[in-house]
């Protein structure tokens, strides 16, 4: 008995050590007080893992589930926990798309409820607003459903210190209780739950420096004007700048008449700060336990601001509170109450952050001086809004987001009546609202000119708008969730039997919409024998009331089998194989659904009001008469998209679990995908709706290996995951394609089509003999497109797949060690077999925009052999320009492979004895960083954030954690 107690203590000790930063509860014996120095373990491997709506013993898991825990989340200094997911979870592909949150600046109006509007790729399956506008998450190629503490909510701003675990559920069986929403997989976030023990306080303070990465390099004004003249000359047009202009730009002798302003240096600082504080309190005893987490984040933007009246800096301040209270009413009845609240206050310049950033990308250095000689803002007809003015003299815009989430869970065990029978009910109520206070203004700009006689004159461009003060609701959502489950779990000898009947109802109201209601009625049975053989099956009758009446519910099902070979006698009882702890084979298969029906698209309906309604003016007063417009044919047969998902896996655990290996294979066929039919003649006079047409297949392998070891007091680990993901369009009702290379069917999903480039046209003769786009006369220096069908003309028939065909590959390797209070970890994350279009073109849209230093490599007769860029032309070139005329080509398709030193953390924990002298439980100092080093196959732009948006940032962060 005593032995058993010791073992249990050890077990719980190791559990706590491994699970989180949660300190080891110091064991007290009657006789002596001993100090145990807590050893910080970066990786955790708890015996119970979080699954959808509950936890499960890890040995019972049949599906594909991967998890990370608090330590892996807190080491990433960022505003969203989603930043910490990159490279850590096999099967989860992440791409950062912007470096700063995108604020919703538009007021909600009734017209937002556009009937018949189908979801876009961004809103697909969404039931409301999301706070993640920065990281694109794809779980086995699908945008996953995020479930926070048992309820679907797109919340990514939870304080990482407050999160117990983040898991991804990738296969059909793991997500089947979502029924009609189960196809896309799940990101499961579980916040910290109360643990019995004395009251503990944990306080963390940290501050980081954020530095933008890969800002573009604009051309200095003299190079710009030289190259612009060259571009004009290439078109046979006369030059726009004289030699005197060139000299004035080069020597900066005339800063007002010939300005040369690097907007990035002028408007952006080299770095900005991010600070975070969090306080976690937990404690409680037998009958009641609690945790309280308080978080504060203050993230500053990069703008150089100098307005003394008010703050125009882009800024986010966020306050979060998460409390959990568990009360055991009696030994059968437990209740859990959770309250989560979030307040976020944002600020941005009145010129709007996004507009300023894109303005910096498009405004040439010589567009206008920041200030005129008289101190007024510079500008011109083409650039009436001075960028500096947009940052500093245009007022400010504040946004507020408020969020409350209340969760009540009751669980009753009927063990006194039927052993193993239990009932659980969960209810969640959540409200969300975001508002904006717009106090923006418009500052006029002036064009300064000096006449030959020496008279200065200023002409005003841009209107003066006084500071406005409008307050509007930008988004609102309400959610109500109810779940009940009656279950039975019991072991009879070696037989473990379980079962559950389950009902849930999820109702969401987004802005003006009618509530959308999802319901699931499911039954699950589980069986295992001697922890050797496992079986599980679930049937779910699930529906969504946005579908046509009578077509709202469907059947979804999944089943799985498992076999732990290591438990078989021939291994378990074989001494020479004692180093084998686990060889578990498992497989799941299921039919899943994806409800992306949109808003009552099955009804024939007409827009009669709002912004998208057509308006016409009749009468001498030209008074507006609104129209009544049917935008798209109704599809009365619309149904959810379906998936048939197979997952097979192998778990190996060797050498007393020191070495662990997991391999997964999946083969998911998604069908009835919503697409527009191929034969869509416009003679019908209206757009065809989305119909259940497409079939795609996603297959892949995922591998995870972990080795943990120790040498004396050195503990070390290395874990790596690697994912291979292959997609294929099996059917998409293409219109007849003239040539096999035009076909999208058979290609990877979302393949980019474009022209194949055979270098540059090198001579006039070659120009005459090469195939050209109709109406375009080729000249030396133009891109030479490959005439696939040999008809002498370049057109859509010559478009071929130009993106990467090989399976997408992505990986992450985390390694670390700890010794004598020091702990170190590092994450290397990378992507392979990726390609993307870099959509920059010289002199931009109408031929007056900014140009960057890479166009120095343009084609000229002298550099014909080394040119990297076509000959320069002003404005849009009908042949070379990649995107205005849909002329994507291999010239602009770049290798997207990269790897990053994504995250490094170094920590030092004071010896417990020292901490105790300060009456502290533990003290840890740490420093961590994000995006410390990047190697990209194409290095000119960041491989992730490569559009004209707020840049990706490197963050160096230091902090201290104190526990009382």
């Amino acid at each position: 008995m005593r032995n058993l107690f010791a073992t249990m203590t050890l077990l719980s000790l190791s559990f706590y050590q491994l699970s989180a930063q949660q300190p080891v509860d110091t064991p007290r014996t009657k006789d002596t007080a001993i100090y145990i120095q807590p050893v910080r373990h970066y990786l955790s491997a708890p015996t119970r893992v979080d699954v959808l709506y509950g936890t499960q013993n890890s040995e019972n898991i049949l599906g594909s589930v991967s998890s990370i825990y608090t330590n892996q989340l807190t080491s990433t200094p960022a505003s969203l926990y989603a930043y910490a997911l990159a490279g850590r979870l096999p099967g989860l592909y992440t791409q950062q798309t912007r470096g700063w949150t995108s604020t919703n600046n538009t007021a909600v109006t009734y017209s937002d409820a556009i009937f018949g509007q189908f979801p876009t790729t961004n809103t697909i399956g969404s039931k409301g607003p999301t706070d993640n506008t920065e990281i694109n998450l794809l779980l086995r190629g699908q945008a996953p459903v995020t479930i926070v503490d048992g309820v679907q909510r797109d919340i990514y701003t939870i304080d990482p210190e407050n999160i117990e675990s983040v898991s991804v559920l990738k296969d059909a069986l793991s997500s089947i209780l979502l029924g009609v929403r189960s196809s896309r997989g799940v990101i499961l976030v579980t916040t910290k739950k109360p643990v019995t023990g004395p009251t503990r306080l944990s306080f963390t303070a940290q501050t980081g420096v954020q530095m933008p990465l890969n800002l573009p390099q604009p051309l200095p004004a003299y190079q710009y004007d030289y190259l612009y003249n060259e571009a004009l000359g290439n078109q046979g047009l006369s030059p726009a700048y004289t030699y005197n202009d060139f000299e004035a730009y080069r020597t900066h002798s005339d800063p007002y008449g010939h300005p040369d302003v690097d907007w990035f240096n002028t408007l952006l600082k080299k770095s900005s700060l991010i600070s975070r504080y969090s306080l976690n309190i937990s404690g409680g005893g037998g009958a009641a336990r609690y945790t309280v987490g308080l978080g504060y984040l203050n993230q500053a933007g990069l703008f150089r601001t100098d307005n003394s009246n008010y703050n125009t800096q882009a800024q986010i301040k966020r306050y979060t509170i998460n409390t959990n209270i568990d009360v055991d009413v009696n030994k059968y009845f437990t209740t859990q109450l959770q309250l989560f609240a979030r307040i976020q206050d944002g600020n941005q310049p009145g010129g709007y952050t996004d507009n300023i950033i894109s303005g910096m990308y498009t405004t040439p250095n010589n567009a206008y001086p920041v200030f005129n000689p008289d101190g007024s803002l510079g500008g011109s007809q083409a650039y009436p809004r001075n960028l500096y003015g947009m940052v500093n003299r245009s007022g400010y815009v504040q946004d507020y987001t408020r969020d409350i989430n209340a969760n009540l869970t009751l669980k009753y065990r009927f063990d006194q009546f039927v052993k193993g029978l239990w009932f659980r009910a969960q209810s969640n109520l959540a409200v969300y609202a975001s508002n904006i206070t717009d106090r923006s203004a418009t500052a006029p700009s002036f064009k300064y000119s000096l006449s030959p006689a020496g008279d200065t004159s200023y002409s005003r461009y841009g209107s003066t708008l006084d500071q406005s003060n409008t307050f509007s609701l930008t988004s609102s959502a309400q959610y109500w969730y109810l779940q009940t489950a009656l279950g039975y779990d019991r072991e009879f000898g070696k037989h473990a039997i379980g079962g559950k009947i389950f009902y849930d109802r999820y109702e969401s109201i987004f802005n003006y919409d009618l509530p959308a209601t999802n319901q699931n009625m499911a039954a699950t049975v589980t069986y295992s024998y001697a922890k050797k053989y496992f079986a599980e099956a679930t049937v779910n009758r699930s529906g969504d009331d946005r579908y046509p009446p009578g077509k709202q519910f469907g059947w979804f099902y999944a089943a799985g089998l498992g076999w732990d070979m290591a438990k078989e006698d021939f291994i378990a009882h074989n001494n020479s194989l004692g180093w084998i702890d686990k060889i578990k084979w498992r497989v799941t298969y299921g039919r899943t659904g994806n409800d992306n029906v949109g808003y009552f698209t099955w009804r024939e309906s007409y827009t009669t009001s709002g912004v998208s309604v057509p308006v016409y003016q009749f009468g001498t007063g030209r008074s507006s008469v609104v129209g009544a417009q049917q935008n798209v044919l109704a599809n009365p047969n619309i149904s959810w998209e379906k998936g048939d998902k197979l997952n097979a896996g192998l778990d190996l655990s060797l050498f007393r679990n020191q070495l662990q290996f997991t391999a997964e294979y999946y083969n998911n066929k998604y069908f009835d995908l919503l697409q527009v039919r191929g034969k869509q003649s416009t003679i019908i006079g209206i757009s065809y709706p989305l119909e259940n047409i497409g079939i795609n297949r996603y297959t892949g392998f995922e591998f995870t290996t972990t080795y943990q070891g120790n040498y004396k007091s050195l503990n070390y680990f290395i874990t790596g995951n690697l994912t291979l993901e292959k997609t294929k369009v099996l059917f998409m009702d293409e219109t007849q394609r003239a040539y096999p290379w035009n076909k999208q069917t058979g290609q990877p999903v979302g393949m980019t089509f474009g022209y194949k480039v055979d270098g540059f046209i090198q001579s006039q003769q070659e120009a005459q003999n090469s195939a050209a786009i109709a109406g375009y006369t080729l000249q030396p220096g133009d891109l030479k497109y490959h005439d696939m069908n040999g008809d002498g003309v370049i057109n859509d028939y010559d478009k071929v797949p130009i993106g990467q065909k090989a399976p997408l590959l992505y990986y992450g390797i985390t390694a670390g060690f700890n010794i004598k209070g020091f702990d170190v970890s590092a994450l290397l994350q990378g992507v392979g077999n990726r390609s993307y279009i870099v959509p920059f073109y010289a002199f931009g849209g109408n031929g007056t925009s900014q140009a960057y230093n890479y166009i120095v490599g343009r084609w000229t007769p002298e550099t014909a052999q080394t040119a990297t860029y076509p000959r320069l032309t002003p404005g849009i070139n009908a042949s070379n320009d990649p995107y205005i005329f849909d002329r994507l080509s291999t010239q602009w398709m770049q290798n997207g492979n990269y790897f990053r030193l994504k995250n490094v953390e170094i920590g030092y924990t004071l010896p417990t004895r020292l901490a105790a002298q300060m009456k502290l439980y533990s003290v840890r100092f740490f420093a961590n960083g994000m995006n410390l080093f990047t190697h990209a196959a194409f290095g000119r732009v960041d491989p992730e954030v490569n559009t004209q948006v707020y840049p990706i940032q490197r963050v160096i962060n230091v902090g201290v954690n104190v526990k009382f």
Partner: protein
Amino acid sequence: MYMKTYKIVLSFAVMATLTAASCKKYYESVPVEQVTPDYIWDTQDSVGGLANNYLTTIYTYLPLGFNRITTDFLDAASDDAISSQSGNTDITTMAHGGITVFTNPDNTWANDYAGIRKATIFLNNFHLVPMKNIYERNARLGEARALRAFFYWELVRRWGGVPLLGDDVKGLTDNIELPRRSFESCIDYIVSECDKAKDSLRTDPVDDNNLGRWTRAGAMALKAQVLLFAASPLYNGGNTGDSLNGYASYDPNRWQLAAAAAKDVMNLNIYKLDSPLNQIFIETKSPEIIFMKTQSTGKTVELANGPINFSAGPAAGYTSPTQELVDAFPMSNGKPITDPASGYDENNPYTNRDPRLTATIFCNGAPWLGGVVETFDGGLSRPGGSVVQTRTSYYMRKFLGQYETGSSFQNIVHDWSYYRYAEVLLNYAEAQNEFAGPDASVYSAVESIRQRAGLDPYTLDPGLTADSMRTIIRNERRIELAFEEHRYWDIRRWKIAGSVYNKPLHGMEIIKNAIGTFTYAVQPVFTTSFDNAKMYFYPIPYTEMVSNNKMRQNPGW
């Protein structure tokens, strides 16, 4: 123990009750505010409110000619103007002969069929609405019918014969693979629809409240234009011989039909020439305009086309009229500038010209916004550098408000005129001249236009041959109707596009001398391209070809 259990059971019961209570329906199962067809065709509504809104929607499918091709006027793809933008714009694609089955900036196919569908739905369902006012009820049916005819005409003049749907409205499961109908059937259909619409439409002049709606004269003017085209060389026996693209053989009577249709409009004696020319496009209700796209007041036309760099009215100057168009304007004495007796001075090219030149084009020195338009090299509106600016030293003046002395743009009327009385007169003169030769009625029609323009003398030499009269009428059409989407189609229906295109277009290079005088030099600025073999008709769009096995492509494409 049991007490406790009961309590727990009770609390679950309470929770269940609450759940059940919350299941009571607070919301309708489908949004009642959603407008479904039974709202539109309301069988209780004696004024036809939503049905009228539905009709309004069809009007929104009418094209708005101002800068219609992305940022440019359609006529910037003729020999009258070029785009000011030095890069490639949609209109330069067209002027370069870059229209293909995949790319066509003037592809109105889908828009026109969308209008046709809605018009047919209106015609088929409007009877459900118990309108009490029969005159109004008939007028609305007439409007829908005229709109449908208009959209078919938009298709036919671009592609030749197209599929005619009649009164069919196709649904999701219907087969819509329909063959093209012959050019002749399409013209017959449009003309008969115009006649049918005419009888039920409002009489002219229309009351102030219904200005902008189709009237009888509108349907008649549409018919006159359609018949004029049908009689023109491109279609009247002069095409490739394909019945999709014209008549099999020439028939002079087609000119007579066209003349008669134009004469019918003239005989109404309601519309007349209005002056000054600049005013009719910005007038609230001009007695000259027969049918137009009425718009809310605004200043977008000025902002898009006015000369650049006026800080009182910073405009984009998108349209650069060509030297060819400027040269087409005669002197104010009515003589062409090529006539040695005209008094034209190459060193002072803009004085004593047809007043329509000033009304249509900004030349160097023209007054604007209290200042002067400077289009000499380095001048205010031709400063050099990378900003979009005129490439010919001219900007388009027509359609803009009277801001010669203004200080800023105001919101004013900018309607797009489809049919105005001057065009009807020119339609008549052309058709009558072709059918009967230059008789007195032809003289009278042309001279009335020259008179209104302010030419002195406005009379034409007596005794002109039909050929010389044709030259004069064609030039009058060009300058009188410049930028109104006529030139682009006229050079096609006259079958002269091959010689009008395929050569350089010119602009003026103006150097300001030290003493304030100007030196003028004509420079080539742009070369157009046209393939006689196929470009008189647009290619059927690729998506239509592959969606419809019965669709036949135009010759040469």
